């Protein structure tokens, strides 16, 4: 078996000969790893996933899943992967149980085996008591759990999750996180997920890749990424309007000082230790400190640092926007 569960080398997708959606992307996902794929709307996340799950053909470059080439051995790839799409794809007129059996049929799994597995999976996602209810009576959370069960019917080695907790309430999201952790722990599954919730990526993912404008900007563990920002941010305000940049820069651990609207943003490792030092140094020089705050970097800061602050809705493709709007409208009823 190959060393990496997923490996992409120079993976590229160009639409209509000019629109570069994914631009020579390289990354690898190890066996049993939860890999997070983050990026603004239109960054190339969905296109990358669609290539990996063999829905789209790469324009250039290659990728493999469990050693199977996604272009040349797509049949083997399809048997080894599972997909939990962002949309609710279950049929409303069918029951939860029937929906799982339908998924099983798409893999050609015999009825005998699929019936047993469907019941096991319904148990796993805690839908057993609703198994004979039509899906149209399900809540959003139940539907998402059903999607998860469908994605697991072929016992995939690699599971793709596209925004697995989009639009879920806090309880269901917590439960979903638990399922995801269990899949990794109990079945040694490799999980590839996209999300817009950075605390989710932080809590679940072993490693994260941030993609923007079709290119991977950075890959690393959540801790590595947070450390890459250069530590904590201490915000200091003083009474008088004098420049203290030079003074603060001399203090131990301080890496960077920026003045913004009369307050100073000081970057430093181990902010808890540096902050008292700063106050002391300022007092000695006769400055009165009027405000002080300490911020530990979260993935939010990491994300904004790498992708900038401008909004991307305009770049999102019309199709996925329409689909999202439609999905939302449907569940309002």
């Amino acid at each position, binding site marked *: 078996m190959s060393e990496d569960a997923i490996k992409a080398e120079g993976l590229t997708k160009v639409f209509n000969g000019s629109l570069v959606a994914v631009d020579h992307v390289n990354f690898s996902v190890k066996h049993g790893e939860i890999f997070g794929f983050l990026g603004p709307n239109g960054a190339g996340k969905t296109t990358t996933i669609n290539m990996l799950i063999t829905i789209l053909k790469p324009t250039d470059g290659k990728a493999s899943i469990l050693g199977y080439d996604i272009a040349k051995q797509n*049949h083997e790839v399809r*048997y080894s992967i599972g997909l939990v799409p962002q*949309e609710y*794809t279950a*049929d409303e007129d069918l029951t939860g149980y029937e929906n799982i059996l339908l*998924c099983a049929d798409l893999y*050609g799994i015999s009825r005998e085996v699929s019936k047993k597995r469907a019941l096991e999976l319904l148990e796993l996602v805690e839908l057993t008591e609703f198994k004979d209810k039509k899906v149209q009576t399900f809540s959003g959370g139940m539907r998402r759990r059903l999607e998860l069960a469908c994605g697991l019917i072929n016992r995939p080695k690699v599971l793709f999750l596209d925004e697995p907790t989009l639009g879920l309430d806090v309880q269901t999201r917590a439960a979903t996180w638990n399922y995801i952790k269990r899949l990794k722990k109990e079945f040694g599954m490799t999980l590839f997920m996209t999300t817009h919730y950075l605390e989710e990526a932080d809590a679940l993912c072993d490693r994260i890749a941030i993609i923007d404008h079709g290119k991977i900007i950075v890959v690393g563990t959540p801790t590595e990424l947070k450390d890459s920002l250069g530590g904590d941010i201490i915000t200091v305000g003083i009474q008088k309007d004098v420049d203290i940049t030079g003074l603060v820069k001399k203090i131990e651990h301080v890496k960077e000082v920026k003045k913004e609207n009369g307050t100073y943003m000081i970057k430093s490792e181990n902010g808890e230790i540096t902050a008292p030092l700063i106050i002391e140094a300022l007092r000695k020089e006769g400055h009165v400190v009027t405000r002080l705050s300490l911020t530990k970097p979260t993935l939010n800061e990491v994300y904004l640092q790498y992708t900038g602050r401008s909004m991307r809705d305009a770049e999102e493709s019309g199709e996925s926007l329409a689909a999202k709007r*439609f999905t939302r409208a449907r569940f309002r009823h």
Partner: protein
Amino acid sequence: MSKMNDVSKSKLHGLWALTNRELKKWYKAPTVFILTLIQPVIWLGLLGNALNLGSLVSSSSITFPADLASQFTPQQLGILNDFFSNVGDQILQSTFGTTSYISFMAVGMIAFTALFTTMFSGMSVVWDRRLGFLNKALSTPVSRAVIIFSKVLSAALRSMFQAAIILIIALPLGFQFGDAFTPINILGVFAFLFLICLGLSSLFIAINIRSTRMETPMAVMNLLNLPLTFASSAFFPIERMPDWLQAVANVNPLSYTMNGMRQLLINSTIDYSQLALQYAYVGIFAAVLTTIGIVLSWRFLNK
């Protein structure tokens, strides 16, 4: 891989599952199911009677002026009535191939229902795409051709079922089988329906698969719907149409389907060379459009 032992390697796996998925949306939703059964009753009951062209030439629509009638004995009047009714039947027979207009129209209705069923089946591909089901299915080992063909097959099966229902409903409304009818002919009718559905459904799927909005297919269907229905022999025989309309109706595959089914169901004699021509025309139509449809859909799915 050990995992592959419990799965089928057939290229056609999933075909019945996907076809049945389409059918279940219909027979498992009682409202939809009942409405699809009521629709032909309304068509036949309302249009079949309102447009009852047969009554125009029946003897009951002829009354003799009183001064004329007084010159005949009741016996002679009876003979005259019989004569006119006979002439009327002959006109109907030569125009519609049967003396019962409702029978003529019922067969039109069968083809018409097939047209609608294939249109809606074509539209369902837009839903599948928008709801993410298409992507989901494409990520599984099920063959691309099976995904498309399941839609075609479900449309064909639905049409056949609806054809049977229309015939059953039409019987109490006055439907008369022709002298040449034998139960075997029903199979011939199903063959016609299967072929026409194959062609139309493939065409509509190829049109719709690229669309993400419902509005586009609706507009296309509305545009095609009228000419396909009225420039055909659904309500009126082609021979009595103006020349330009005849030209259109004569290439319309629905005309061939209807005329073929009428031969099998309501005509007093079957012209086998005509029947062979009708099968050939509909068959070639199906083969060409299915090829085009599958090639176009295939190219889209293998972007």
